[in-house]
């Protein structure tokens, strides 16, 4: 078991390194370096610096050294929590991001839980009542859920909310709480705004998970231990819920690993449409303005948080599956 945990930790570490390299590449991809961009930015606002000053800045940021040295010094700063300065905002990146990172996670996690809550009962129903009318309806809805990109769904919901209900469905906070400091009232306000974006995000994943749950449970239902449970005299409901459903739960635990990155990704676009104060809109602005330190920091943070989510899912899987838990006992 210890070996298993160590292996997962090692893999998570390597993934983080990989993400950092990609992030660094993204920061470095645009032609010209940070100082060029800074000068262009200054020029746009009407001021300028001399060539000497520019060279001094390059030395200060280590831009005159080899790419590996630059990566290393960037990594060292990042590990100290220094993601650099946002050019667009002229403030440290961490300050600009602020709450937005946590709100991204809150939205994604809410979507994940919603996915589970909806997919579990429907998946069980569809498998136990295979080929029933309900099964067909859910399968059909599932396909449609898979087919509509979530930003389109957000767009359509927003339009109908606006048109027929007169609601502005966007945002995560009511007007009076947008700038307010954290309080119970603000948290409650967030909770009230959360279901819609979470539902929009959850649709596709739910459709996928229902199909996986249905297929797995259908497999499990055919296994002899289900007959054993029935032959003991258990009720049908208890026999199914205790044994095959338990076995088919594994994909729910591992769904964190592949749904979570997907939900984080989706939240970026959905946030743009629904105007959610997550890192999504910020990332787009930063990319369009080529504010690469800000963009890089966001990509890096999202990546690392996803890796952590995956790690949690692996440990969860280990915890619920005695075969892995007792490895080497």
């Amino acid at each position, binding site marked *: 078991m210890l070996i298993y945990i160590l292996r997962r930790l090692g*893999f998570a570490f*390597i*993934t983080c390194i*990989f*993400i950092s390299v*990609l*992030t660094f590449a*993204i920061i470095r*991809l*645009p*032609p010209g370096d940070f100082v060029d961009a800074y000068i262009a930015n200054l020029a746009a606002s009407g001021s300028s610096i001399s060539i000497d000053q520019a060279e001094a800045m390059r030395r200060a940021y280590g831009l005159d050294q080899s790419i590996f040295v630059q990566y290393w010094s960037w990594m060292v700063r990042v590990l100290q929590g220094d993601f650099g300065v946002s050019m667009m905002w002229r403030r440290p990146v961490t300050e600009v991001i602020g709450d937005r990172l946590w709100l991204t996670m809150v939205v994604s996690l809410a979507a994940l839980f919603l996915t589970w809550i909806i997919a579990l009962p429907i998946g069980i129903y569809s498998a136990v009542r295979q080929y029933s009318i309900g099964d067909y309806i859910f399968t059909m809805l599932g*396909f*449609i859920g*898979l*087919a*509509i*990109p979530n*930003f*389109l769904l957000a*767009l*359509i919901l*927003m*339009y109908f909310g*606006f*048109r027929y209900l007169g609601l*502005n469905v*966007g945002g995560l906070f009511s007007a009076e709480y947008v700038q307010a400091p954290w309080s119970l009232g603000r948290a409650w306000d967030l909770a009230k705004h959360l279901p819609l974006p979470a539902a929009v995000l959850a649709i596709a994943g739910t459709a996928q998970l229902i199909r996986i749950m249905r297929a797995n449970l259908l497999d499990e239902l055919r296994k002899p231990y289900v007959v054993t449970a029935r032959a003991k005299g258990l009720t049908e409901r208890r026999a199914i819920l205790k044994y095959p459903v338990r076995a088919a739960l594994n994909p729910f635990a591992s769904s964190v*690993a*592949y749904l979570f*990155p*997907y939900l*984080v*990704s*989706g939240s*970026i*676009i959905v946030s*743009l*449409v629904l105007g959610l104060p997550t890192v999504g809109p910020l*990332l*787009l602005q930063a*990319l*369009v303005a*080529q504010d690469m330190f800000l*963009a*890089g920091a*966001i*990509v890096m943070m*999202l*990546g690392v948080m*996803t*890796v952590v989510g*995956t790690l949690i899912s692996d440990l969860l899987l280990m915890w619920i599956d005695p075969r892995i838990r007792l490895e080497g006992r």
Partner: protein
Amino acid sequence: MSVTVANDPPVTAPEVRFAQATQLQLTWWRFRRHKLALASLVLVVLFYLVAIFADFLAANDPHATDARRSFIPPQGIHLFDEGGFNPHVYGLKGVRDMRTFKLSYTPDASRKLPVRLFVRGYDYDLLGFIPTSIHLFGIDDAGPGEGVFLFGTDQLGRDLYSRMMVATRVSLSIGLAGVTLSLFLGVLLGGISGLYGGWVDTLIQRLIELLRSVPTIPLWMGLAAALPNTWSVTQVYFAITLIISLIGWTDLARVVRGRFLALREEDFVIAAELAGASQGRIIFRHMLPSFASHVIAATTLALPAMIISETSLSFLGLGLRPPAVSWGILLQDAQNIQVLSGAPWLLLAAVPVTVVILAFNFLGDGLRDAADPYG
């Protein structure tokens, strides 16, 4: 009392057919039973026909702007007129809004413009090499600001219907190009992984796991945003294809590797090895044909993800750039709730996206069931 010998029942014709059918033929026979998948196949073919004949189907120049005819609502074609069959649309009348003093066109029921088939419009190359100006339908001798606007117009007065036709070509072809590239990568790396095993396999599997545990959209956004502004439409097109194909290959590689691993243990492959067949011959003569249908199914299922990726990136303004027209670019216009509440028909561009993705999903599912009835 006579003792008769038990004979095998005579082999009937259909059984002969079954026994001699190739793997692909068997798959096709099984596939035909899925009605929904078959209907989806027809739909997908229709969509690709639209893509091929996009300019012919377009009624107006998709790039022609006219500020005065911005946001015209969809026009219905009236089929009958004074008892006879005479398809026509109403002409447009310039009206000045007395509050904003903006001139705009509104339908004018007194002027009827006849809609004809095979009319002359803007010039284009049919199939890319036949210069012509014939279009399926339109209005003969259209004056300025006149035309059939089936799905209405956008802010710049461009005909949404014609733009959707052209966008179909771009969005579907970029999906196809992306999936081809993914297929190449997937078959190559999955094949190597499944065939050689050992540390190569471990390495490639770890790489796939790595790519799958990273949130893709922010990364692709970063990559796409890094494309220089100076690049031409074509250059951006290929760069975007490259970026989105990096998403799809991992799934395909998994399918290919899985099939290779399963087939390596199959009796007929071992038999071929024992018979001294070369490795290349085993792969291409024995293994590839037996999992071609799996790969086709997996490829079909990978296509929707490609189309969604392109649409998403373009929607964000990080994918294709105007003057290129794709579904994502059309939807970009519908991003704003103010615009949307005034011109809800812009959301029509969402219909082909949804329909084609649905069709590919059904098709892929049907193919997968047909390829692997036991899986």
